[in-house]
């Protein structure tokens, strides 16, 4: 269980940083974008502990700005440190993503056969 949540944490961090890299966003926008990408389970409240963790590590920073709809919102930006971290995670992920998905698909078939 601990390993599982560790793994999920890393992936979530990377997803959030990837969205922020594309364009600075505020919380609600971020959750909408993650939902649109097709990650409904990690979209709503789950992003805030992630945002806090990323800020604490210096990977993103927040800044108050007027939003498109009017009121001030806290927009999140990727820092240089975050950029480096994201590139590293992305490289590692791409290396394992394909073989792991293939392997896990087979694993599911094996379960069924039994």
């Amino acid at each position, binding site marked *: 269980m601990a390993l599982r949540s560790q793994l999920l944490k890393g992936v979530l961090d990377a997803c959030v940083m990837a969205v922020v890299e594309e364009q600075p966003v*505020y*919380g*609600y926008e971020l*959750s909408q974008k993650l939902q649109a990408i097709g990650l409904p389970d990690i979209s*709503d*409240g789950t992003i*805030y*502990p992630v*945002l*806090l*963790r990323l800020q*604490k590590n210096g990977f993103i920073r*927040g800044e108050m700005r007027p939003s498109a709809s009017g*009121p001030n*919102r*806290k927009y999140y930006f990727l820092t240089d440190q975050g950029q480096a971290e994201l590139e590293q995670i992305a490289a590692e992920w791409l290396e394992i993503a394909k073989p792991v998905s293939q392997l896990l698909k087979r694993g599911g078939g094996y379960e069924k056969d039994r």
Partner: protein
Amino acid sequence: MRKTDELIEENNHKRELLNVENEKVYEDLLLYLRTDLRIDEHAGEEILMDLLDHLVEAQEDGKSAKELFGESPQKYADELIENLPSQKRRNVFLFSASQVLGLTGWFAASFGMISLIVSFFRPVDNSIALGSLLLMLLSVMLVAFVGVSVIFKIIRSSVFQAEKKKWQAYVKAGLYGAAAFACVVLIAWLFQDFGPVIKLEWWLFLLIGLVFLAFSKLMYKWSE
């Protein structure tokens, strides 16, 4: 006004946009975060504002606080607290010092004013026992520190519970507060004339009090 206080005030206004059900869940979360003295106050208020903005927008889209904070808001709050930066020592020191100075300042200023008013009607004795005064201040500080920690702990344990349990907790916290106050009164009564006695004019008390209050305000302002 401190930036943190501005956030708190904005939060007070914005909360009115929530419907009854969402407001209840949100206010529980708010109380739970604010009574945690370990976390950095400003960072705490920032995330509370983020969550409030999110909840207001989600509400417009027909979603509920449950969908945002999950089935267990307390678990969610603990996860937030775990990832929030901790309160800086500098701020803790400045805040405590501002409270102590403020308390002493109020005491001295009111003492000066009262003795001025009383002096119109009858001669007053402006002498004060330094030992008793110091003991009184120390006991107030100690009682305030222990009292706040205990009372916050009681409140925090009941935040996400049903109304009945909350009331029980508030009564319990109130009793603790009353007992703490009684302790201070008892100490003041037991040690009435203790240590060297000084005699000051009423305006000197007032002046000292005002200077203390000014420093207290300044330190509060620096405490973020």
